[in-house]
């Protein structure tokens, strides 16, 4: 293994990894403290906290799926154009002509999987009572992450611009029309009038705000594209940082006192 030795003794390697291979106890501790990615973790941890039967690794799998979605999503963005003219055709081409069109499959099934693993993670956190003090707030952060995960999935559903997409979004967003007070067909919307003029119309209600139009159209496609590719992922990234930070600050993975 002379080549390996040479590489590991080179100045370049040593400038990246400031310590020998993590083969003994000392260096296994040092690697956790000096590596940017690993320092998310503590150095040592209770055995039950990493048992697969305890956490199911579900939070970790959810996070990994989020990373997969980010990478495949960025690659898809190089290809896909969110306009009425191109959206459907770009997806069609991904299926029929583009090499690596499988990225779309990875992205779509990864999204479904992430919804499922988020539910399972929450289920595990509930079943181990891990939302109890001092982890109440991290559970709240988790609930917001759950909501954002669903919204990510929902906004992405529209982008292929096929029948499945626009009708699912139409059915889903029709709900907003019924928002109490703020929805055009919602209870109490009649209350918001000034001098006999309705403030809540189909051109100003909650659904219009969501769709950017009176029905699912090009404005909606643009709006959902921006939400899906930029706004929601940024929010998720921020909340994930808080979520992981809090896991550490709340005393690591829960366990019996």
């Amino acid at each position: 293994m002379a080549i390996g030795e040479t590489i590991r003794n080179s100045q370049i390697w040593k400038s990246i990894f400031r310590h020998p291979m993590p083969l003994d106890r000392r260096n296994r501790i040092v690697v956790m403290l000096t590596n940017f990615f690993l320092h998310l973790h503590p150095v040592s941890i209770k055995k039950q906290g990493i048992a697969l039967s305890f956490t199911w690794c579900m939070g970790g799998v959810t996070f990994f799926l989020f990373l997969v979605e980010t990478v495949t999503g960025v690659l898809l963005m190089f290809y896909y154009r969110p306009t009425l003219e191109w959206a459907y055709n770009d997806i069609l081409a991904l299926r029929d002509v583009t090499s690596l069109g499988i990225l779309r499959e990875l992205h779509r099934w990864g999204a479904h999987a992430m919804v499922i693993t988020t539910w399972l993670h929450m289920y595990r956190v509930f079943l181990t009572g891990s939302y109890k003090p001092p982890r109440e707030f991290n559970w709240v952060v988790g609930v917001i992450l759950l909501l954002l995960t669903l919204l990510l999935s929902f906004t992405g559903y529209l982008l292929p611009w096929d029948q499945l997409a626009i009708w699912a979004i139409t059915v889903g967003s029709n709900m907003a029309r019924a928002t109490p007070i703020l929805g055009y067909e919602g209870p109490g919307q009649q209350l918001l009038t000034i001098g006999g003029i309705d403030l809540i119309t189909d051109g100003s209600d909650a659904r219009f705000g969501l769709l950017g139009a009176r029905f699912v159209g090009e404005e909606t496609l643009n709006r959902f594209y921006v939400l899906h590719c930029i706004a929601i992922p940024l929010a998720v990234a921020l909340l994930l940082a808080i979520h992981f930070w809090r896991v550490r600050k709340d005393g690591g993975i829960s366990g019996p006192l």
Partner: protein
Amino acid sequence: MHSSGFFLKDVAGFLGGYYAFMAVMNGVAALLLWQKKRNVWAVTWAVFAGAMMVLASLALSASPAFVPALPSGARSLVNSLSGPVLYTLGTTVLLGVLFVFRKFFVQPMVAWTILNVMLVLMGLSMADENFAAIVMKPDNVPIVGLVFLLAFFTWVATKQAVVNDERIAQGLPPMEKVNDEKVLVWPDLVYTELICMVGVSAFLLFWAIFLPAPLEEPASSVKTPNPSKAPWYFLGLQEMLVYFDPWYAGVVLPSLVVFGLMAMPYLDFNKKGNGYYSIEERKFSYLVYQFGFFELWITLIILGTFLRGPNWNFFGPFEYWTPYKVEVLNNVDLPQMFWVNLLDRPLPRAPQGAGVLSQIGFVLLREAPGLVLLGAYLVLLPPLLAVTVFRGFFAKMGFVRYMVMVSLMLLMLTLPIKMILRWTFNLRYLVSIPEFSLNF
């Protein structure tokens, strides 16, 4: 429609692989059990694995005479029996039985038997063209996965809870406490994570290669598909639209779910069961959560996805989704029941040219029965419960927390209550004020 030759050719390969996979799975189980000297079980599963190989080769024949399927009599029976009522009651009873006899069901050999029964039933059903058409829709496949994953993880959790509960009853600490020596994160955790990542990537690649993502016709705002469905994770909410108007099913209830979940850690004052699996130590919160999660979310999603066809009509699992199925809807509102059917009078109605106030008065009078019932439910019930069943809770939680908890629970129960009222009395709305688009 009956299984045609074409259809069987399409699924034969899949079913062959499916049964072969079951054979391998059970073969491995038999081997492991043999090594552990549990010979009777080992032989049982080895024989079962052999039977699965036979099914696999029968399936590969792709001929209607041989592909293993449920007898058509059984399928029609299931179709004619199933409906929203039986489905909901059936799943409730099933979950209840699983919960009450959990000590029995968590035994590995019992759980393994159940898994095999589920898989065989699934395989037999897949040979039905109508069943396969719905289940094999690419976007529905994840829900099939969800069902099996939920069953598996519920087993994993319940098994540990049963052990812990027994230990706690004997005065011993839970297993998680026994295992609390410290280990280094590198290598123990880092390697587990790496293996998980490789496993998930492999699984996702496999899925992506074998199941193409759906792409239907280009969007058209004039061709409305029937049924029009939201994405699968919202189908529980869409199913609630059968019982409530969109403002409640689509806006208020989901907001309450989010709010209720966030409030949970602040409402559950029980200090026990923190950081380990246990059921006995936190039975109340456990049952409330499981009821909400399984009954009001998961089973409704399954119902909305697999059993609701054109016009949101109910279809049995092996039924053809014809758009021409007619369901008689003769639902009545409570004011109609009360004033017209019970008291035999016309609905109270403001006289022509009445002022706004008098109009409102007449609306309130018309809706009085529903408003009184609702008022009693939401206003009288909380204090009543506080001095009876929830006396202990009230004392420990204080007024505000208690009121938040009880209100959330009562609102959650509006869904099953409304379902039952619909099934028993054909009730549509308790309160119906179209003047303000307010129907409940």
